[in-house]
C-alpha cells in the first residue's frame, strides 16, 4: 500500500469516528464500526472499507428531521379551487365537518408486515409539525367520497418503485382514481431514486410525487461517475477487485436479488431508523463470516 493510500484510509476512519463522536452519525455505535472495519482488515481490504465509508450517506434522526421539513414545510394543496399551505392551513388545524377533505396515510398495504417504515415516518412528521391526528388514516380505511380532495401517502424511501406499485395495486389506487378523478393523489417520500421516479411516472402518472432527496445512477457507489471524482489512476480497479474478493470471503451474495442491492441500485445510503435493501448488502447483511454495520 502506498503512503497516500494508507493516509487516506486513516483519514477516513478518523473522520468517521469523529462523525460518530459528534453525533452526526450518532446512531452508529463505535464498537460496531470497529468490528465492521475489522472484517475488512482481516481480508486486507481496508482501502475498500475507506472508500465505502467515504461515500456513505447516513441520515441520522436529526438529519431526517430536516428532510421531513423539506417535504412538508412548503407543501401546498388545492382545496375547493384555492391553494393552501398544507401545514399551516390544514394539518395543524382540527378538521371541521364530518368528512375529511384531505387524508394522509402511510404506505402500508394490508398484507405488509407491521415493521415497514411508513407509519413510523408519519408519526415522526405528526410530532414534528404538530399535525392533528384527525387527518390521518390507514390506507385501507380511507373514506373515499365527494368531500375528499387530496390523499397523501407518506414513506421514507422509494428505490425501484416496485413496492409503491405493489401497494397501489393492493389498495386499488388506479380504480379509486378512475372512480374519483377529482381527487389529487400524492406520494410524499423522503428519498427517491431516479429509477423509482421513472417507474411511477409511467405506471401511476396521476400520482404527484414530492421528495426531499433525489438519487441517480451516479449514486451507485461503484459507478464510473462515483469513481470519476477520484482522478487517481488504478484506484477504481483496486477498489473493485477488493470488493470482489470480499464478497467471496464474506459469503455475501454475488447473484440474485440483493447482489448490488435490490434493483441493482448499488447504494451506500441509509437512515438511522432503517436501511433500504437497495443499499449494498456489505453494509447491512450478516453472514457467518461477516458483521454488518447497519440494520435493515
Amino acid at each position, binding site marked *: 500500500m502506498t*503512503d497516500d493510500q*494508507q*493516509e487516506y484510509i*486513516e483519514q477516513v476512519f478518523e473522520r468517521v469516528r469523529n462523525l460518530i463522536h459528534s453525533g452526526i452519525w450518532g446512531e452508529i455505535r463505535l464498537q460496531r464500526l470497529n468490528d465492521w472495519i475489522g472484517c475488512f482488515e482481516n481480508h486486507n481490504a481496508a482501502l475498500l472499507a475507506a472508500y465505502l465509508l467515504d461515500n456513505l450517506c447516513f441520515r441520522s434522526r436529526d438529519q431526517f428531521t430536516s428532510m421531513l421539513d423539506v417535504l412538508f414545510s412548503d407543501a401546498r394543496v388545492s382545496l375547493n379551487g384555492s391553494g393552501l399551505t398544507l401545514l399551516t392551513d390544514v394539518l395543524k388545524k382540527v378538521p371541521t365537518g364530518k368528512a375529511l377533505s384531505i387524508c394522509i396515510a402511510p404506505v402500508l398495504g394490508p398484507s405488509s408486515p407491521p415493521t415497514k417504515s411508513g407509519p413510523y415516518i408519519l408519526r415522526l412528521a405528526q410530532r414534528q409539525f404538530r399535525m392533528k391526528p384527525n387527518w390521518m388514516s390507514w390506507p385501507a380505511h380511507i373514506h373515499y367520497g365527494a368531500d375528499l380532495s387530496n390523499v397523501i401517502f407518506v414513506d421514507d424511501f422509494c428505490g425501484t418503485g416496485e413496492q409503491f406499485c405493489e401497494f397501489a395495486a393492493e389498495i386499488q389506487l388506479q380504480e379509486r382514481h378512475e372512480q374519483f378523478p377529482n381527487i389529487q393523489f400524492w406520494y410524499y417520500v423522503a428519498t427517491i431514486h431516479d429509477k423509482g421516479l421513472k417507474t411511477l411516472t409511467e405506471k401511476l402518472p396521476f400520482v404527484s410525487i414530492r421528495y426531499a432527496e433525489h438519487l441517480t445512477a451516479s449514486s451507485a457507489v461503484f459507478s464510473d461517475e462515483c469513481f470519476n471524482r477520484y482522478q487517481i489512476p488504478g484506484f477504481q480497479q483496486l477498489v473493485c477487485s477488493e470488493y470482489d474478493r470480499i464478497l467471496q470471503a464474506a459469503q455475501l451474495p454475488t447473484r440474485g436479488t440483493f447482489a448490488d442491492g435490490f434493483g441493482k441500485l448499488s447504494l451506500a445510503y441509509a437512515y438511522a431508523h432503517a436501511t433500504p435493501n437497495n443499499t449494498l448488502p456489505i453494509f447491512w447483511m450478516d453472514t457467518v463470516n461477516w458483521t454488518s454495520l447497519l440494520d435493515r
Partner: protein
Amino acid sequence: MNNLGQAFVRNRTEEFGLDLWGTYVLPPYYEALGLNEVGKSVVLEGGRGSGKTALLRYVSYNSQFSSNRNDIPNSAFKNIGLYLKADTQYFSAYSGGDIDERKWQDIFEHSLCLALTEQVVGALTTLNCSVDRKAKYGQLEKLDLGGAVGGYSNENIPSELEKFEKWIRLRRQELSRWFRNVESNHLPELFSLREFLGAIIQEVRSNLTYMKDSIFAVYIDEYENLLDYQQRFLNSLIKGGEPPLIFHVAMKPNGMRTRQTIGTEAIQEVADFRKLSLDILLEPEFELFSAELFFFRLVRAGLPEGLVPINSETLQDESKINDRLTNKSYRGRLISEINRILPGLKYGEIATIILADSVLSTRLKKLIGDGIRQQSSRLAADKFIDKEYPEASIVCAALLHQSTKTADEVLSQFENLKNGRPSNFKDGDWVHHFLVGSILLVYFPYRQRACPLYAGFSAFRSLSKTNVRHFVELCNLATTGLRTASEFADFSVSIDTQAEAALRVSRLFKNEVAGCGDFGNRLLAIVNVMGKLYRLSQGKPAQSEPERTHFCVINAAVTDEAERVLSEAVKWSVFFIQDESKVKGVRYESNEYVLNPIFAPFFGISYNKGRKLEMPGPQAEAMLTGTVQDYTNLLKTYERAWATSEDEQLTLGLED
C-alpha cells in the same frame, strides 16, 4: 474532579478567563523578563502556544488584584498591568466609508482611550472588591474623575467612580452606535488617549496613597493583526511612553510590519523598546517547566498534592523561582517521576523490540538482504543480525546500502564489535550517526504503527519544542487512561499509547495549519511538501544524510513574495530559524529553516535537527510560491534523483 484524565483537556489560555490567580505556573524566565522593573517599553514576541497570553493575563490587574488573592504585596502596585487584546476583526473595520485614514486614526485612538480608561476603573474596582479590601485600600471617594478630564468634553462627566464607569460605558456604546452608520459628519466626541488617560492616572496617583507611585503598564496583545496605521499609532505610543503610563505590545514573531510612527521618526530596538522572545527564553528550562506544569495540572484536576513532587504554591511564588531552577534534588525528583509516568525507550531498547517483532525483523532482514545483493555479495543476511547487539544490527540495514562500505567490511567491523575489538560501529560512530534514521527506516512502511521513538517525556518535549500547548495536548491524549488518585502511584502510560498519541496530535496540529493567517492554505501545502521530501529522504535505505528535517536556500536568494511566505511560516511556527544566513566563499546560504518537530510523527521522520537539505533558489521559490503542479514536479524531481544516487550532495539545478 475525580477524572484525572481530564487534567489536560483545556490547553488554551482563553479557556481560563482573565483571572489566573491560583492557576498560573510562573515560567522559569519570569524574573529575567524584568516586567516589574519596567521603565521602557517591551515587545513580547511569542508564537502560538508560547504562553504569551497567559503571561500577560497574569501580570494584568485581573490576576494581580484577584479577589482570590489573600495578601497583595506592595510590589503588585509598582506596575499595574492593563491588558487589552485587540479583536482583529473588530479593529479591521476601522477603515473605509467616506472617512480618511487620519480621521480613522483618531477614532481608533478614542476607542483605545475608552477601553483603557475602563481598565483603570476596573483595576480600582477589582482591588476594592470586598469589605476587607475597601478597608485596607479604599479612598475611592476622594477621586474626582469628572473633574480630572472634564476639560476634554462638552458634557458633564461624573466624578464618582461608579457613575464615571457608567459614563465611559455609555461613550463606548455611543461609538458602537456610530458604527451602524459610518459617516463623517456625525462623529461622536473623540478623546485623545495620552491626555485623557494621563489625567485619569494622575488623579488616581494623587488621591490614592497606595497607588501614589504606581506605573500603569498597558499590554496590547495581537499587535500583528492590527492595520498598518494602527501599528504606527501604537509605535508612537511606545516611543512616547514614559512613567506613569507605558505601552507594551505582544505579538507573534515577525509581527511588527513597520517601525514607523505617526510622526517622522521610527522606533528602534534598544533605544525605544526591549524585545523579549518567549520561545527563546523558555527553551533552556523547558524540561523543568513542562514537568512542573504536568504535575500542577494533575493537582488542579484533583490529585492530592502529596503524591507529586511539586508544591503548587511554590510554582506561583515569584520569590521562589530561583529555588526551582537551582535545587538539583527537586529537579531530579521531578524528572524521574515524570519519566516513570511517561517512560521512553532508549534507542537500544527500541532496537531490541524490532528484533523481537516478527513484522519488523522481517523488514530488517529484507533491508539487509537488499543491501547485500546490491553489493553483489553472497553473504547471508543472518550474519548481520545478532540479538546481543541490537543497535549494530539495525544500523547494518543502512550501512550495507552505502557505496563507501563493502559488505565484507561491515561484517568485519561487526565481528570486531562482537569480539570486543575496536570497531567502527562504536569508535567510528556508525551507531551514533545512523541508529535513529535506521529505526525510522524499519518502521517506514507501517504508517499506522506509531514508532516508539515518539514516546516518552523526553520525546514529547522534543516534539513540542517550546510550545506549551503542544506539550499539554500530547499529555492529554496520552493520559486518557488515568482516572483516579488511587491508581496514580502505579500509573504509567504504555509506549504504544504514547506513540499513538503523538501520531494523533501530529495529525491534529498539521490540520490546524490551514487556519493560520493569511497564507494558511499555502503553509499547509508547504508542510505537506517539505514533510514528504523529508520522508522521501528518510525512506532511502542508505541513510547517508540521516534525519533530514531542515533546509536552507543556496545560491540564489528568493523573491520578496517568497520571503513573505517564509516570514509567515516562521510567524506561525511552521518553520523555526536555526542559523543565520551566511556567505561561504562565493556561495550564498540562507537561514536554516527547521520544520516544526510536532509534524515529525505524521511523516515518520526524526524530530532532531539532523542533516540539512540544500535547496537551490529556484526550487525553494517553487515550494514557497509555486502552483500545485510545481509541487508535484518538485517531489518527482527529488524522487528521481534520490532513487538513482544513494549518496549525494544535492546537485539538482546547480552549476558545476
